[in-house]
């Protein structure tokens, strides 16, 4: 396995793209999000200066793709799969109930910053649908009644 050094700040990320190409934009945004958990306004300005692209273009790209978040997420990221297999097994009710339980909607963060709900389309774990994924841990074959206990595990 290749051991790549994880960049510690935005300057280091930008330094990894010495050619300053337009096609580097999405990889840079991906690296920034990995570093910060989201894409901050400052980061957009820095990238804009580096690639010599208007901030509006960068904002345009960042908002087009579902992957990019423009607000910092909470401590725990709860991803609810809304793919077809999960839908057929009742993921709509799961999401509804999760939203009600936490008092927020998808793509929002609770006031205490404990949870962020995110909706994703298919995590490739369709065989154990319906699936939610909290901080990278999969929880499959779920029923709405299982949710409170799962949420409790994440302080």
């Amino acid at each position, binding site marked *: 396995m290749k051991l790549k050094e994880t960049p510690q700040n935005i300057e280091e990320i930008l330094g990894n793209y010495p050619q300053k190409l337009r096609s580097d934009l999405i990889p840079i945004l991906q690296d920034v999000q990995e570093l910060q958990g989201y894409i901050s306004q400052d980061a957009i300005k820095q990238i804009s200066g580096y690639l010599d692209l208007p901030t509006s273009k960068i904002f345009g790209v960042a908002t087009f793709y579902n992957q990019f978040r423009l607000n910092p997420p909470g401590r725990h990221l709860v991803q609810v799969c809304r*793919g*077809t*297999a999960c839908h057929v097994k009742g993921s709509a009710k799961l999401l509804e109930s999760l939203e*009600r339980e936490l008092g927020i909607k998808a793509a929002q963060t609770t006031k205490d910053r404990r949870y962020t709900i995110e909706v994703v*389309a*298919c995590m*490739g774990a*369709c*065989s154990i649908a319906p699936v939610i994924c909290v901080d990278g841990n999969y929880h499959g074959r779920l029923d709405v009644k299982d949710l409170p206990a799962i949420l409790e595990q994440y302080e």
Partner: protein
Amino acid sequence: MGVNTEYKNHIKALLENNTTFSRSADKPVIFVGAGTCGLACGAASSEEAIKSALESNGIDAEIIDVGCVGYCEVEPIVDVKLPGKPRVTFFQVDNSQAKQIVETYIKNGSLEGLNVLAQYKDETAEPIEGVEEINQITFFKKQMKIVLENCGVINPTSLEEYISRGGFKSFARLLKEYTPERVIDDVLKSGLRGRGGGGFPTGKKWQFAAVQKNPHKYVICNADEGDPGAFMDRSVLEGDPYRVIEGMMTAGFAIGADAGYVYIRAEYPLAIAHLEEAMDKLEQAGLLGDNILDTDFSFKLKIKKGAGAFVCGEETALIASIEGKRGMPRYRPPYPAVSGLWGYPTIINNVETYANIPSIFRMGAENFAKIGTAGSKGTKVFALSGNIKNNGLVEVPMGITLREIIFDIAGGIAKEKKYKAVQIGGPSGGCIPEQHLDISIDYESLKQVGAMMGSGGLVVMDEDACMVDVARYFMDFIQKESCGKCIPCREGTKRLLEILTRITTSAKFMSEMERLERFGGIVYMNRLAQSIKDTALCGLGQTAANPVLSTLKYFKDEYEEHIYNNRCPAGLCSGMTDYKIIAEKCRGCGLCKIKCPNNAIVGERKHVHYIIADRCIGCGACHVACKFDAVEQVKEGVASEN
């Protein structure tokens, strides 16, 4: 990275059959199914359990992480190959089972009480009595593995092992002996058609790009796999990445390209990691980069991670995305084969399409063309999910029937329910009812019944599914994923979603005007769907209405039930379900009353509570809240409101 001479010579010797690859024959080898699906089922913790059991028993063994064999229903799956014995597959290996496997089988050679699924055929070992051969068990019997032949069997990142299974050998030969024209000719002869959805003949596409006079051309692998409910490409890349790369290199040689990209979803970290490792080893072996195998052919490969937009699976949008722009499709022609990435001739094929290429050259184009039907050759990989007994990944010859896949391979509908429909082709496909289950799986037949091959997601629905809800689900997906460039798709899908949302919402709390619109919408739906189909810019919009049209065609009665009787026969559509409290079970704790968002529940503490039907919005919050299962869905006989 660059070439590592020692490694290069080692690989070269393997390719020329001067040496062979073999695994240590004197100690146990343990294969853990560690694809994303396996890991989601707990394969990592089973592996830990195996390791610690080996350690405490003082056993020296080799542990290898393999991809997914496809039988996801019974994961985690672990195989054990003891010296002198065939490879044995165990299913549902949780931590305690893992420990038992080590102590009972590896240490003492007994299979007593273990979850034994099957054994592999092995020329060098006596079969174990009483254990079925893996190809004979129901799930695998009707399958035909070409693309998936190595998935879940070999160490996905070992170049040596891939070569030992025939990998890169025919490629090495064609690089030295074939002309690019002959390669294309063979692909044409094989009859291979694109597996990414459209079914365009692969050889033709390569021909278009090959005749372009341009010193610079590109080969792109489409691994965006945005179709929700499909995970074939992920499994292939996780379980056998070299195969896809070999296919891409063959394409590069055929069209005269010197560089390639794999555009892969960022949601597939394991597939990306395996690809990176494979590319790294190929570079060291001199099989990627300049002057491959000391010929004039040079080919460089890069990975581009997608950023989560369904439309980026469309080829022109994908190109825009690689270029760092918003992934919006453009009008074709010019086709990418003429003007693609940065204006250079580019071919784009799906993962599975490339994965077929090495097999075509290994078995010969004529033999490949013998598999399948007149117009659709070879096999197709399907991801089976939904309400069936055996979820998983299967590869079947073209021409098999849907009934065989669903009822033989997948074991039929789970929980003894009745079959209702199968959704094939994802958001661009359609739902196929019982009466068409016997059509053969090929590109043309599927189109005839209003569906399409698509990329290979098969989601099976039982009698409890609501087909209007399914149509609404897909429209919701498409409407969110529409890139917004052309009006028919941007506005049209939104209107269609509105109409479907009204149908699937109870009219109980609607004003007269809204009720009128609810009816009006239905009248328009067919016409609107048709005009989106006729006028949208790219495939996303052109096929967006398919789920609606196909459900409308086969399940009209369900639409009518929703519209005229305000009732969801499946009891799924929120607001069209009534709930009632079972007096005997209610303890009067009042939790439901607190959770009800519309104050529809009344009752005193410690006394039975009641739901006021007129107030109830049918959200089901009480049902979830109740700790005593006292709130129940009323499925039949909901009072008609209209």
